[in-house]
């Protein structure tokens, strides 16, 4: 490993000395925090609660029906009593009451539908869950923005910090450094909670993890079932492979 590093360093030096411009690492986005995604019923239910209370007022999840949540251990009655504020029947989709034109007026952009957001936000940097987990923990106060909020991962975001009551208000400290090539690069140095919310930092991270787990689950409900079905299918196919191999061998006995 160290030899490889040395070789790479030597190569890097050689390239730089030769005056060939260094190409910046392609698609290098900001680093994402690893989201602790958990697909147990308790986490997903907690996540669903947060989603319905904090996200669904502005964002729809129009591909998801309320009764899909029976898959995470809730009964239809529980869903009806606790989670359905904007629908009458459990078979209805998670629509948003907010009118799109109003939203566009208020936020500059209509809040996107979140049904498959966790799949869309995946990239080479990390899973969609990682992106959401980082994003929801990096809002900070910025008076230059119309909403008073900005985000480190998504600069200039239209959305205000919906979970601020839980997290509190953060202040971001940026430092601008020279990257050694004469370019000014701005780095986030720290995020500091200046006005605490109802949760501690650890509790907030925990709740965001639940929420992100739910959003990930919602991107393809029943993805665990898909995997467990896969093992069964593979078992059947393996038997098929063995039988067909024996059949082939039996037929090919007389071919020389």
């Amino acid at each position, binding site marked *: 490993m160290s030899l490889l590093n040395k070789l790479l360093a030597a190569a890097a030096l050689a390239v730089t000395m030769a005056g060939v411009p260094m190409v910046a690492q392609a698609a290098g986005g900001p680093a994402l925090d690893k989201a602790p995604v958990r697909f147990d019923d308790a986490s997903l239910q907690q996540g669903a609660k947060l989603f319905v209370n904090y996200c669904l007022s502005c964002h729809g999840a129009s591909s998801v029906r309320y009764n899909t949540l029976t898959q995470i251990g809730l009964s239809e009655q529980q869903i009806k009593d606790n989670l359905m504020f904007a629908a009458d029947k459990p078979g209805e989709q998670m629509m948003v009451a907010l009118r799109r034109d109003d939203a566009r007026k208020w936020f500059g952009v209509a809040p996107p539908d979140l049904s498959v957001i966790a799949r869309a936000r*995946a990239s080479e940097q990390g899973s969609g869950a990682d992106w959401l987990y980082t994003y929801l923990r990096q809002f900070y106060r910025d008076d230059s923005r119309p909403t008073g909020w900005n985000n480190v991962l998504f600069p200039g975001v239209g959305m205000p910090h919906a979970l601020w009551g839980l997290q509190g208000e953060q202040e971001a400290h940026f430092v601008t450094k020279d990257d050694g090539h004469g370019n000014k690069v701005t780095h986030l140095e720290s995020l500091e909670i200046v006005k605490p919310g109802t949760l501690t930092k650890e509790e907030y991270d925990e709740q965001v993890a639940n929420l992100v787990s739910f959003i990930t689950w919602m991107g393809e409900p029943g993805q665990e079932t898909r995997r467990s*079905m896969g093992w069964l299918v593979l078992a059947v196919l393996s038997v098929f492979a063995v039988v067909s191999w024996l059949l082939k061998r039996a037929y090919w006995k007389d071919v020389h």
Partner: protein
Amino acid sequence: MTCCKIVTDKAQQLLGWVDERFPLTTLYREHLAEYYAPKNFNFWYFFGSLALLVLVIQIVTGIFLVMHYKPDASLNAAGVPVAFASVEYIMRDVAGGKFIRYMHSTGASMFFIVVYLHMFRGLLYGSYRKPRELIWLFGMAIFLCLMAEAFFGYLLPWGQMSFWGAQVIVNLFEAIPVIGPDLSIFIRGDFVVSDATLNRFFAFHVIAIPLVLLGLVAAHLIALHEVGSNNPDGVEIKKYKDANGIPLDGIPFHPYYTVKDIFGVSIFLIVFAIIVFFAPEGGGYFLEFNNFFPADSLKTPAHIAPVWYFTPFYSMLRATTSDFLPVLWAFVALIAGLTFRGTGCVWIKRACLLLVAGLYWGFFGLTVFGFTPPPIDPVVLGVHLGRGLDAKFWGVAMMGGSVMLFGLLPWLDQSPVKSIRYKGPLFKTILTLFVISFVLLGFLGTKAPGYAFFGLIPGGPVAAICTILYLAFFGLMPWYSRIDKTKPEPERVTSK
């Protein structure tokens, strides 16, 4: 016993009744029971039957998808395009829909994997050589149809990559002189990719191309069964026949190769199931992440990447920059010159002349209509080469041409032997370089233009070198296949 006898007698009668009216038994004999295939097929010979299997998977899953999919770009009540939402509807609300959809999306990628390996088999064992030129050309047509089918189909989920990928590719037609801009509007049916485009692409994907594809597959198989299969030794088994006229090295396709191919199918299905059940996104290569954002004509993604199976050719398009054009021109002219010298086929000689003349005028002189003489421009002194057609046109020509080149193989290969087993070190080296170039081009095509290997080796020059190697594999073939040191072919097939 008597009961059984009655049943078999009745079945015989029924078969006789059919045979008087339709050549059922004859077809069965000619294409299965008495189609004699060489007995020495190896691993590489699984992919033909597997391609047929994937075609069936695509058609069957496709039928069920069409029952629920809606080619409609308008927004629904939730502000999501109807087409995009209908795919999610299939994924969630249609019984088994998730698996049907994943099988179809995985099937698209597997189709290309299988077909690329099938074509590579052709390169290894010279399956395109006389008398199988038409099989090869039908196969090329199938490959083109497959690309069109994949391209049209990719628009249907109406995600960001669907939309912008289609936008980029249709815009390429604008590079064609004179008619280009009108042609691209004609293809789209609108000034941008829109509902009109979605509906016509749906029609092409579901009806037009599959019809042509099925016809071509039939032609491919009929031609194959007319001349007989090639084999890893590249020798004709029909040379040595027994007293009944059956090739000594041939075995009936059914049951020998049907049972063998069933085993191949079982292994393929295991791989297929692993992807469908455990990694349907294929790490973002089979289902691109960005395509889970609904199409938005106002938001251009930072990086528009085609799906992996198009990237080798897309990379060559991208490599054809105005800086690279003079180098490329020189190499293509050189390669065409060597092809001209090397080939025995007068038509290829003529094509080379035409190519060089065309390139010359295109680079130096051709404005839209006039064949003006080459301008004495600082060009030649190394400053600028822009009087001819622009780089975009050459990029498109390169992308189209690089696909078409495969079709020339039967006439480019001058080797006295067909199979790589008896070909010399020169062919083996160049084929290896070709494969490496193809894979590198494919890899680079999935990356953003500024990509560098390990952050050090810039991708642009690598793609340029690979493009030249790709062209050289075809263009220099008449030359290196002739001078290569080959081994003598055996008289009969060797046992595996």
